């Protein structure tokens, strides 16, 4: 338990160093006690489960592919976190029969009241949508229920769906989001699954096929129920994730989102910008997807025009160096003066400590960057490699640095130096983020002061674009309502 807590604390530092913001919505929905099965999409390799694991007080048992154990950096972590390794057919030579033992272990952990985190897609990917879910998670649920029944105990397993999204998986200081959905009681799901047509059809078919003396194949019914459970889980995770039907759709929607999310009251303060709430973002994406699907059938020309408008706006804003979130920046002398006072204070007071942090961190940072670039063959593993390489590299460098300082530098300066290092590292990271924001904001402000008509024109174009989307939504809703009406009432 101590090694688990220590690993969790260290990983949390690593994640906070890599990501600028980690936004977890709904974490209170994960029960603090009792058996819990967490299921989510899988897009960022080993970083995916860490987002929740590092924020939950209760221990969580992770699952991962067996080939990870061959990685010398990950092996100690796998041991410390008690990760359960699963064999996959696509890993070449993996014995999937070992999975029975592993899954048995997971069910035991759940029976003991533990929490298990599993990725039914089976592997991390960068596809626009979810991959098909394997039935392993559902089978765990059913096995848990069967054992509970055998022990004459209540089946108190809770299933929690989670959607994960990363702003830019291979970019340092980007955002990570996890949305935790409403939990279900497994027993309720199983009962609903058993009552579905597909499950009872499977039972009927099995009965019809049975020859005299042969028993109905319970496994067939289990398979059918597992399929239904898997479909339900997939649907729940899909609702919580930013999924798209194609790369094109993903590109179009992610281009349009920042234009829609901009706050008309003005650009958010640099220190208090928490980004768009995940629930709102999911809702916007769903509505945009519905709109695109509707237009593809009814008016593809209008869809092309909207896509062109979004692309044009994105291009013009990028060319002007303006972030969509800053398009509504208040060009107001009083606010500008307050901004200057506040941000100049941060820049000037924070600069020496940030510089001190960078000087002390530079060798470790350079080494980490070089190693991660060499190791990462795709964007899926960039963040994982960055987090898992940075921990031992920075750890070793910090120990070496402290030792050198304490030996070579006279007291009390050595004590000051040593004590300053963790603070200086943290300030360097945050100051780097803030300084970037300040430069962007000042550039945008000066541009809008010099060209107020440009700001108004861009705002008008965005307003027109959003008005068009709103009209489209109203028309689509009306059409759907109309089509749902019985023909005699149309």
């Amino acid at each position, binding site marked *: 338990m101590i090694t688990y807590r220590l690993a969790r604390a260290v990983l949390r530092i690593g994640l906070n160093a890599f990501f600028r913001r980690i936004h977890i919505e709904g974490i209170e929905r994960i029960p603090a006690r009792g058996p819990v099965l967490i299921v989510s999409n899988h897009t960022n390799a080993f970083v995916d489960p860490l987002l929740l694991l590092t924020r939950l007080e209760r221990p969580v048992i992770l699952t991962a592919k067996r080939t990870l154990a061959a990685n010398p950096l990950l092996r100690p972590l796998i041991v410390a976190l008690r990760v359960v390794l699963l064999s996959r057919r696509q890993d070449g030579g993996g014995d999937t029969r070992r999975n029975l033992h592993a899954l048995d272990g997971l069910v035991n952990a759940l029976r003991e009241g533990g929490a298990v985190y599993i990725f039914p897609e089976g592997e991390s990917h960068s596809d626009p949508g979810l991959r098909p879910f394997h039935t392993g998670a559902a089978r765990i649920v059913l096995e848990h229920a069967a054992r509970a029944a055998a022990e004459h105990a209540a089946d108190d397993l809770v299933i929690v769906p989670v959607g994960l999204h990363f702003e830019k998986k291979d970019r340092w200081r980007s955002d990570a989001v996890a949305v935790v959905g409403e939990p279900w009681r497994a027993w309720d799901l199983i009962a609903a699954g058993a009552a579905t047509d597909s499950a009872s059809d499977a039972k009927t078919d099995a009965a019809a096929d049975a020859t005299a003396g042969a028993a109905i194949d319970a496994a067939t019914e289990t398979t059918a129920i597992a399929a239904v459970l898997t479909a339900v889980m997939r649907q729940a995770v899909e609702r919580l994730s930013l999924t798209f039907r194609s790369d094109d759709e993903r590109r179009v929607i992610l281009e349009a989102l920042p234009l829609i999310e901009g706050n008309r009251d003005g650009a958010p*303060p640099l*220190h*208090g910008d928490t980004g768009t709430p995940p629930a709102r973002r999911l809702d916007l994406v769903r509505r945009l997807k519905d709109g695109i699907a509707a237009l593809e059938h009814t008016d593809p020309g209008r869809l092309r025009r909207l896509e062109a408008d979004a692309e044009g706006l994105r291009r013009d804003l990028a060319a002007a160096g303006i972030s969509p979130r800053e398009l509504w920046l208040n060009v107001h002398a009083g606010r500008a003066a*307050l901004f200057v*006072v*506040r941000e100049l*204070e*941060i820049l000037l*007071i*924070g600069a020496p*400590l940030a510089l001190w942090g960078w000087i002390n961190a530079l060798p470790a940072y350079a080494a980490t960057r070089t190693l991660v670039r060499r190791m990462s063959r795709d964007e899926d593993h960039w963040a994982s490699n960055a987090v898992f390489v940075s921990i031992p590299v920075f750890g070793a460098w910090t120990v070496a640095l402290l030792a050198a300082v304490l030996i070579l530098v006279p007291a009390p300066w050595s004590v000051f130096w040593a004590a*300053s290092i963790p*603070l200086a590292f*943290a*300030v360097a990271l*945050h*100051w780097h983020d*803030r300084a970037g924001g300040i430069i962007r904001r000042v550039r945008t402000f000066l541009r809008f002061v010099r060209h107020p008509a440009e700001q108004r024109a861009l705002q008008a174009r965005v307003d027109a674009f959003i008005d068009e989307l709103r009209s489209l939504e109203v028309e689509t809703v009306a059409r759907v309502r109309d089509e749902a009406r019985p023909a005699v009432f149309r």
Partner: protein
Amino acid sequence: MLVPGLSLAVVTATLGVSAVLGMPVAGAALLHAVVLLAYGAGAWLVHRIGRESLRTAAAGLLVIASMFLLYSTLGHVTFDAIPWNGDGLLRAADRWIGLGVEPAQWLSDAIAPSRGAVEALAFFYAAFIPYLYLSIFLTLVGRPAAERSGFIATFGVLYGLSFIGYLFVPARGPIVAMAGEFEHALNGGPFLDLVVASIDGMGGPHGAFPSLHLGASLMVCLYDFRHGDPLRGLIYVPLVVMIAFATVALRYHWVVDLLAGGALALLALAIGPRLAGMRRSA
């Protein structure tokens, strides 16, 4: 605004009792009674302001102005109103903390021979004032209403409780209580002169227990860190640490004053935002 008001009331009542008992503080008691009435009237007027942003700013100004006023008046009346002196008790506490060593003497004698070190510490000691004032300004003007009212409540709790400490444990600090016991005199430069002149202008060293230098700077730093601007909180950690050193090395505080100031800051941070939240939902 409740805790500062209560603190003012306690101070006024204490001065009144002391005046009745024959201490030469009748004028001060009357003055504080007037201040208390003015504070009450001000609080009533603030409540009647409709616009929330204006009400919060006005409340902030009222609390802060009254606390600063109280700080300057206490320096002149405390030792007349209260018949005992807390320096002896605080010195004994420090000796216990230092396991027989006097931390103020040890630290001050280590620093005093270096004029540069003394002047640097005087700079950090003096930097408390612009740090505090700038933080108050940026909070009252530039933050959302919830953060503003939380800050004002936290400030009010810290200062209100600290002034109770000033009054009932009146102490002047090692600079007076141990005068003549230090190996070296403090020699600095313009910053040390500024510090000495400011303190003398407020009635001389007083209000050692608890240390508001540390309490207030720690409160502001942690408030930033927890409520909206973590980077601002982080960059001032070195200043807060150096202020703590400076208060003891320059002989204005005992170490136990720092512990008390720090504890009060944490208490204020725990209950201030809650009080503000209760007021907003009421």
